[in-house]
């Protein structure tokens, strides 16, 4: 039978919330938007309280992994298929001249979409959520070594995609056929 440690009372939860609530909120907003993000945060801290025996002292990874599972469930729900990204895209298509911010976000999203999903998530966790490979390993359930390998690969691929988007190769370079002389 599990028993709650004596210091895992409401004060503990408040300290946990004050220490990590903003990062959990930012994590959720990045993935599902502001409105649904607060539902995710609520779910995470309900879980933390319910499972306070299991929450490690170094709790950020546990909290973000719980948030990640809640986010995944959010996207699995058939009534919530429109992702934040799709919403942004829809909105940008609806306006005649998308802002520079929208264009940057679309470019970033398209490059992240082109990466293997776990590699893209490693990059998001590094750049946006500012986690170390060891913390990423906890969130994704992989080894720190695998997190470092994926991070290196993701950085390299993303930078290559980004470079290609800035300097697209002319068609003649990719063509296997010799160029015809111009007359």
């Amino acid at each position, binding site marked *: *039978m599990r028993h709650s440690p004596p210091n895992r009372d409401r004060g503990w939860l408040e300290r946990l919330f004050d220490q990590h609530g903003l990062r959990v909120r930012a994590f959720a907003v*990045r993935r599902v938007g502001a409105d649904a993000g607060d539902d995710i*945060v609520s779910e995470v801290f309900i879980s933390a309280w*319910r499972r306070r025996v299991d929450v490690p002292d170094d709790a950020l990874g546990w909290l973000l992994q719980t948030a990640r599972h809640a986010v995944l*469930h959010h996207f699995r729900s058939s009534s919530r298929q429109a992702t934040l990204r799709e919403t942004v895209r829809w909105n940008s298509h609806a306006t005649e001249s998308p802002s520079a911010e929208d264009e*940057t976000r679309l*470019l970033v999203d398209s490059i992240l979409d082109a990466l293997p999903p776990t590699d893209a998530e490693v990059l998001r966790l590094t750049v946006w959520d500012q986690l170390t490979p060891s913390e990423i390993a906890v969130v994704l359930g992989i080894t720190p070594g695998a997190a470092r390998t994926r991070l290196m690969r993701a950085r390299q691929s993303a930078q290559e995609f980004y470079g290609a988007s*800035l300097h697209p190769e002319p068609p003649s370079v990719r063509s296997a056929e010799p160029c015809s002389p111009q007359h």
Partner: protein
Amino acid sequence: MNLLFEDQMRTSDPGASVPAYDPDERAKMLDEAVAATPVRRSRGRLLLAACAALVVAGLIFQSVTASIGSAQASEVLHQAAIHAFDERSRPGQYWQLTRTGTNIYGDQDNRLFLVRVEHVDYVAVDGKRPTWFVRGGATTVRQLSGPPPTGPVTWSPGDTWTTNLSPEQMPAYWSLPSPSWLAALPRDPAQLRARLYADTEGRGNNHDDEAFTYVADVLRSGIVPADLRSALFEVLRTIPGTTVKDAEARLDDGRVGAAIGRNDIFGSTGQLIVDPDNGQVIGERTVMSTFFGFVGDATLTTGIAARLVDSVPKNVQENARREKCTVENDEVRC
């Protein structure tokens, strides 16, 4: 122009300007967290009690409880999917998987006995070192059928062995997964479901029964990582007829979970016992129906416990038989 992709990511960070919760929002969220109760179990009990009071016809009762069972299963599996979490392993460690439970053994005089058994496996976390198997001897709980025995009933004393092959060197499938086989399964529930139903196509008497069985097989292995468990729980939610058979299935060691299963064509059920609070399959049980008249009603329950250990115990290594095995045509021969 900014030429580093990561700088562009930072520029477009949708969470960069997220504000901290104000005092009212903070208090509300903390109040909700502390006040929240594990509704999935208590709600099931209340609903079942309420329905029981209202039922006037058995048929109506069956229909209502089946519907509640399905909704309850969906909720339990949803919670399990969210809460799936793994202790972080280190290279060189093993999963110690202990399965303790009851089974039915028969003797040469056609007597059947309910017996208690314990199996312990040591599975390398990387799948690259051979697994060690410890099979404890059975102890009789009670006799189920047949004439009274004329003397003491004894069973074989158990066995301990290992092989020269690691899980990664053996063919892997749903009932015998290896870490790399598990790693290659899709994590998207829709894709995973498609894979499951493709692999079970044409097998068994019922496609949904077989899909449930395959998921139970792989979860029973005890080595499914948290992200895949989460996806598998989501897939289970979509298998028609999957219901909560017992909202509070209790294991011998005191652990409690929700027993989730389906009725097979004989009326007996194979059930997974899922703890929604930690996203783990903590056991399984088979409820034998009266169809098996020679046995009568019996519930066989097995608890599954997994923990990380740094090494295989010395006595296991010293006592184990070493099986020499080969792989031929995707089959292991020892």
